[in-house]
């Protein structure tokens, strides 16, 4: 099979939510001597990107999760062949991500994680029910470029402000760390009222917004 065919197969495996084919095609890519990074970037990633670009039009949350499963199935095979220094060298940034304290809804947070990782960000996933202090401590410890705050309960909006305040207290925003907030009930207005630098309506748009903010 040619390189072009293998890359196409990788892309299709994601579009078809087909984990088995993703694994098979990833192994074929390695056997064919294709650079594993290229196999991710030009094979698996375009499949996920196509789904993200048509999010809430042709594709929905279920599709994103299933496509991400196929993406990771292939990526895990390919990543094992990439030197960690190389992964770091092409990283687009480090983001600390979590669902705020008092909130255990992590479906949206996970979608954000999948898409940011696919885009080339290193994600420090703090999970759900995360205290404000933890977001800031982890951002400082990992020299993060971004703090990504997920909120699904309107009662927890004030947690966004708490994180922003703590980050300001440690001069993180002055050092260039950008804070973004999002999630079902979070509007742009709420996000800015709470002091965040950015907001996005959906996970795919959050990736674009983050790239804008960092550039």
């Amino acid at each position: 099979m040619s390189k072009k065919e293998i890359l196409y197969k990788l892309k299709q495996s994601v579009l078809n939510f087909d984990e088995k084919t993703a694994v098979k095609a990833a192994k074929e890519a390695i056997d064919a001597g294709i650079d594993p990074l290229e196999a991710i970037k030009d094979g698996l990633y375009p499949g996920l990107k196509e789904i993200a670009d048509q999010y809430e039009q042709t594709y929905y949350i279920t599709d994103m999760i299933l496509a991400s499963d196929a993406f990771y199935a292939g990526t895990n095979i390919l990543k094992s062949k990439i030197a960690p220094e190389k992964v770091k060298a092409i990283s687009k940034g480090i983001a600390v991500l979590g669902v705020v304290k008092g909130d255990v809804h992590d479906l949206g947070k996970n979608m954000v994680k999948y898409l940011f990782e696919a885009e080339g960000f290193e994600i420090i996933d703090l999970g759900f029910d995360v205290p404000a202090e933890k977001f800031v401590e982890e951002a400082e410890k990992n020299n993060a470029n971004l703090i990504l705050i997920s909120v699904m309960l309107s009662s927890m909006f004030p947690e966004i402000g708490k994180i922003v305040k703590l980050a300001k207290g440690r001069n993180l925003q002055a050092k260039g760390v950008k804070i973004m907030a999002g999630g079902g009930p979070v509007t742009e207005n709420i996000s800015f009222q709470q002091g965040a630098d950015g907001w996005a309506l959906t996970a795919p748009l959050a990736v674009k917004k983050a790239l804008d903010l960092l550039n």
Partner: protein
Amino acid sequence: MSKIGKMPKECEEYMTPMERITGLLTRKKLDRVPCFPFVSAAAAQIRRLNYGEYATNPDLFLRCQIEAQQLIGYDGITAMPDLCVEAQGFGAKIIYPPDNAAYPDPYNPIIKSPNDYKNIGRLFDWSHADRMNNQIKVIKTIKEELPDLMIGGMTIGPLGLISRLRNVNELVRDFAHHKDKLHDAQEIITDIQIEYIEKQIESGARTIMVPVVLAERELMSKEMWLELDMPYQKKIADFVRKKRAFYMVHTCGRGPYFDLLIEHLRPVLIQNAFLPDGVKTEQEMVEKYGKKLIFLGFLSVSLLAWANPHEVIKECKRELEVFGKSPAGYILGASCEYPPYAPLYNAMAIVKAARTYGKNFQTGMGANYENEGGG
């Protein structure tokens, strides 16, 4: 902050809340527009309780609900402290944080694998469904103590319940990989929820509100909703109508599929937090769907949480101008549950706005499914 200027005189109320809402649903002229701020967990503020105390003590819950209504003066109560009432009946361990709504233990879901779906019926027993039994008693007591009030019952629907018994990330995968098992579980749950609805209606609930939150562009395609959720939601909707109660739908995600909800569930009223799928403006929502059903809303939770009463009244006035003439009818209210931490004076502002700008309310024609055929 802009001011609203000198306000007109408030109306003299000559209708009870029950007369007002049934009047709206049955096309009568009203003293003022009905209002429903959907004060649920926020009622805990009345007795300065934390949410944990409020949600676990049915007597305190009841007193808070009654006192909040009497203080604020809105027209209806939907008696449900949080969305985990039914999950407790299925054996879920519910966590009651002091400062937030209850939720099922995320580290120990009841349904751990798709194979557990087949046993779901065995998990439920009325004898240990304390929270469901308590809600039924609460409805009965409110009915006895406040007979002129419109009392609403609620169920979260089969998939809503499953989302509290199973890790949601895994549930989403089940949508694709284990549909048959999911359908079997939903069949069983629907029958239990219908029994729960029946008990609520027999205790005095005149309306049943169901959050049909999967019929939204944000969550799934129309085709998937029709296949996975609609048949069971329809069974519930048909049952509510058969019992001669009013069937209402709540949605709170982006792009609710009003077309499908209307076609298949035929709610008398809909409460939505976002504009329907395919609709760009509030005016368009009124034009496209206002002849079919009554709207409830459209006050955003952020407004209720962060604005002051003047701003709330100003927004109520604006919304009355947009939705007040909607052909089927309109209830002024919150687009989702009143935020538990929001000041109650903003709920009072809604009632004040209703009395001031919604007086002599020319109600609409009621929900209209005459051309749709069937029940």
